[in-house]
């Protein structure tokens, strides 16, 4: 589904990603871990199409298409979703209105009929149950006055509504208490399907107790230094990122 080859990315003249390779197939749950500043969020932003990031080398294919050529809204319509680390407030724009515009933009792109307000409401209420969201929230402005937890749950709710092919979760667990964390994880797990893939970005192993990944990758200084199964996350928790980094350095020194 997603192939990233030798990706180099600059932000304001600094190279953040320094040759990243990653392949994600449909149905897989990948977790990307790494210390602060290693480039995790940069990768998420680049995949979503944020234009403040400059790709200097490499390629990204999504279902065989050059993802980097598409505008952010085209990527979303193609099925790429990113749950924001810091969801943005849009005062005066109702959540229901916003989401219907989003759903209809995607449906229009797929050549499907647009949903009217009544059909949409029925569809959305079903999804709200997934993340235990209060229906009142639909009437409020997008993310305005939401608590940190509500914002993060809101992102998972939006993901459920938009039914993407590839979902990127950018530190969705940060700032969540254990109850909220479980709700978010349940929402994500309920969405796992053979034709959908996830890239879950996190600092901590904690989230991975609830969302069990097929693959874990460790990002250090702009490169993936280690990949493995879910056990890798446990090992990291125990030994820290320094361990992963050193083991790769040792390997490099030995060769």
């Amino acid at each position, binding site marked *: 589904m997603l192939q990233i080859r030798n990706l180099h990315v600059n932000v304001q003249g600094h190279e953040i990603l320094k040759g990243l390779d990653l392949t994600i197939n449909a149905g897989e749950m990948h977790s990307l871990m790494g210390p602060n500043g290693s480039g995790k969020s940069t990768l998420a932003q680049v995949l*979503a*199409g*944020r234009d*403040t990031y400059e790709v200097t080398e490499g390629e990204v294919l999504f279902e065989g298409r050059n993802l980097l050529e598409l*505008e*952010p*809204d085209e*990527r*979303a*319509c193609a099925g790429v*979703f*990113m749950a*924001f680390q810091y*969801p*943005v*407030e*849009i*005062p*005066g*724009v109702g959540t229901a*209105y*916003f*989401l219907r*515009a*989003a*759903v209809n*933009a*995607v449906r229009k*792109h797929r050549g499907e009929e647009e949903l009217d307000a009544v059909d949409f409401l029925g569809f959305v209420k079903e999804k709200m149950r997934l993340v235990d969201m209060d229906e009142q929230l639909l009437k409020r*402005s997008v993310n305005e006055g939401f608590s940190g937890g509500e914002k993060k749950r809101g992102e998972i709710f*939006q993901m459920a509504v*938009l039914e993407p092919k590839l979902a990127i979760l950018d530190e969705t667990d940060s700032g969540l208490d254990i109850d909220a964390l479980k709700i978010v994880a349940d929402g994500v797990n309920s969405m796992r399907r053979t034709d959908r893939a996830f890239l879950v970005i996190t600092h901590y192993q904690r989230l991975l107790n609830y969302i069990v990944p097929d693959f874990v990758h460790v990002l250090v200084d702009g490169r993936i230094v280690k990949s493995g199964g879910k056990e890798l996350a446990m090992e990291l928790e125990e030994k820290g990122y320094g361990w992963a980094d050193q083991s790769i350095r040792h390997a490099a020194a030995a060769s």
Partner: protein
Amino acid sequence: MVSSTEQTPMSSETDATLDRWQSEEYKYGFYTDIETDSLPPGLSEDVVRLISAKKDEPDWLLQWRLKAYRHWLTMTEPTWQNVHYEPIDYQKIIYYSAPKQAKDRPQSLDDVDPKLLETYEKLGIPLQERAILAGVAVDAVFDSVSVATTFKEKLGEIGIIFCPFSEAVHDHPELVQQYLGSVVPHNDNFFAALNSAVFSDGSFVYIPKGVKCPMDLSTYFRINAISTGQFERTLIVAEEGSTVSYLEGCTAPMRDEHQLHAAVVELIALDDATIKYSTIQNWYPGDKDGKGGIYNFVTKRAKCLGRNSHISWTQVETGAAITWKYPGCILIGDNSVGEFYSVALTNNHQQADTGTKMIHIGKNTRSNVVSKGISAGFGQNTYRGLIKITKSAHGARNYTQCDSMLIGDKCGAHTFPYIEVKNSTAQMEHEATTSKIGEDQLFYCNQRGISTEDAVSMIVNGFCKEVFRELPMEFAVEAQKLLEVSLEGSVG
């Protein structure tokens, strides 16, 4: 493409092409080719007399006009406002232009020139009562005269007078004489004095005691003729315990020259009366380089004369090359309430200097001001407001919220709030924000599949929500669409 052998300037094919082209930018930019009765350009005492004579006015009104004209001659054009324009040559303006009619004034809609009906049809304002917007009565002002008024008879049955100003002068002289100039005197300011001298038509509304007007009343102003200024005058009087909601809309053809629109609006509310006055101003704004467009220099003022009276101004200003106006309320009656809700959008090279004046005189008077300014392109948007609490206004309260939004980095937002408090019991609140339409917000919308253009209009509409909800339902929808069109191309 259009065949070049076609010699007539407006073949139906070119007409259609033009229409399509215009509809992408300013869809009301067409011109109606209609025979007119116009005065030559220029202003003099003779012109004032001629206008008055054309309307067969009583002597008191001619004298009032002349008083205004003579005073205007002693005044100089104000320059304190935060807008810039080439000096206006008042001798080049045509002060009276009216479409020719079989008789002086059509007696019923059947007598109205079909070309005019067609014009209003094109503007989305059908004048046939059966086809009309549900529950809205319309007075249609075309250049200097009112060409049709709908539902006049039906409203008349419950004592409501809704007619062209010039007709009111003949049919209800005592009311006009009592209230004309009572809120905006003939010598109030440069443009109000000019208007008082040469005003040609406008709407007159009188709601009798205890009557709740059963439908929205509206006036649709259309400038059509070239080089012509429009100087209309609207007067609304709401007697004790009455209620009325009034809406005005404005459009003009696309032209390279600037045209002047200098109107005066006076509202009077007596005890327990409510007037809601909404404006959707969509004059031609000029082209992308700032060529052409209407100068919209308007004086609008309301008097809350009676106890518990309530007057509310709502304006959506998206058109005009320059907008300069401060709809205000003089709160004389105890417990009276004045409100001002405004959205002003300037794109390309448009300029706006607008806001309100709230003068608190009566006890426990309240005023509420919500202003939303949006600047895009090279647009300059100024909020200027005066809140004045006089000595007698015990327990007066004001709340002002003034928000500006910038789209792009070549536009400007300016705020000049003036506050004068002479009574220590007053409570004042002023909140102001300026925000740049966020890259973050746009990206967030994009990431959900919403295109940048749709995202901008969504964010801007959200920003203006507090004002839009004050508009009558169908016009709120209209206002949203208008913002979308006006913002086209504002984000590169």
